[in-house]
């Protein structure tokens, strides 16, 4: 499949990003002075002796945001082919045929969002 050569730049770009960022890590390692002391390597909490660990459980609200994001992200993924297709379908005279399925789809999700809103799921506190 010779068509794959089309993606060679993609490989090169990935390589470029990795090499460029890696170079910086190497430079820092090679040129920086190394005289660590215990207090230098300690957790920085504005000079106040640190209390407890950062490995604490945190608010479930962040989790809810991530969950909502995931669901809407999947929705957006469906929207992209739809948006691109609209032109093709309009030219074929079938615009409504793709418009209404998406309308129903988004209306359902919109209702879900509305429910979330009314129940206070979108409130931060």
């Amino acid at each position, binding site marked *: 499949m010779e068509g794959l050569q089309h993606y060679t730049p993609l490989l090169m770009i990935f390589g470029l990003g990795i090499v460029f960022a890696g170079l910086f890590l190497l430079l820092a390692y090679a040129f920086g002075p190394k005289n660590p002391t215990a207090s230098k390597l300690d957790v920085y909490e504005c000079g106040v002796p640190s209390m407890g660990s950062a490995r604490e459980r945190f608010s479930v609200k962040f989790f809810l945001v991530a969950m909502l994001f995931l669901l809407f992200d999947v929705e957006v993924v469906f929207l992209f082919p739809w948006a691109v297709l609209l032109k093709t379908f309009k030219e074929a005279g079938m615009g409504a045929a793709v418009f209404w399925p998406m309308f129903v789809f988004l209306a*359902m999700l919109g209702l879900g969002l509305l429910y979330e809103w009314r129940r206070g799921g979108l409130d931060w506190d």
Partner: protein
Amino acid sequence: MTILFYILAGLALISAIAVISFRQPVYSALSLVVTLFSLAGLYLTLHAEFLAIIQILTYAGAILILFVFIIMLLNLNDDELKEQTPALWRRIVLALLGGFTFAGLWWGVSKFEGDVKNLPQGFGSIINSGKLLFTEYVLAFEIAGILLTVALIGALVLAKRRLKI
């Protein structure tokens, strides 16, 4: 080009094994990102551009973000992680379940008789996948919408119940 396939498939396999071998869940999640990237590469070798990008956008960019969030939410420290070694019966059951899944996949793949070498023009493009989605599979698409809405409400119910404690 077969070399590319073997490299990507090998990478996918190694990182998939790494997912289940690491004790630290963050490492597992990161290995899973590598797996997903190599899978996206495999899709690209089949000219399924849209699928490859969606793979990264939703799986690596959304689902795994959620995983890492949960890992951070639980935020197990190293001592807690060492305690967890699953019982023998659990390991056996899980191995059996995994084996069944693998056998099912194997069976499904062996029945596949399509021609992957000579793909039609525009195969895997966003236009073609979209056309199928909005004509032939429009019912499945709407059901996906219902599923997403149910998940939306479910997430709220679960999270809100926790919040009220």
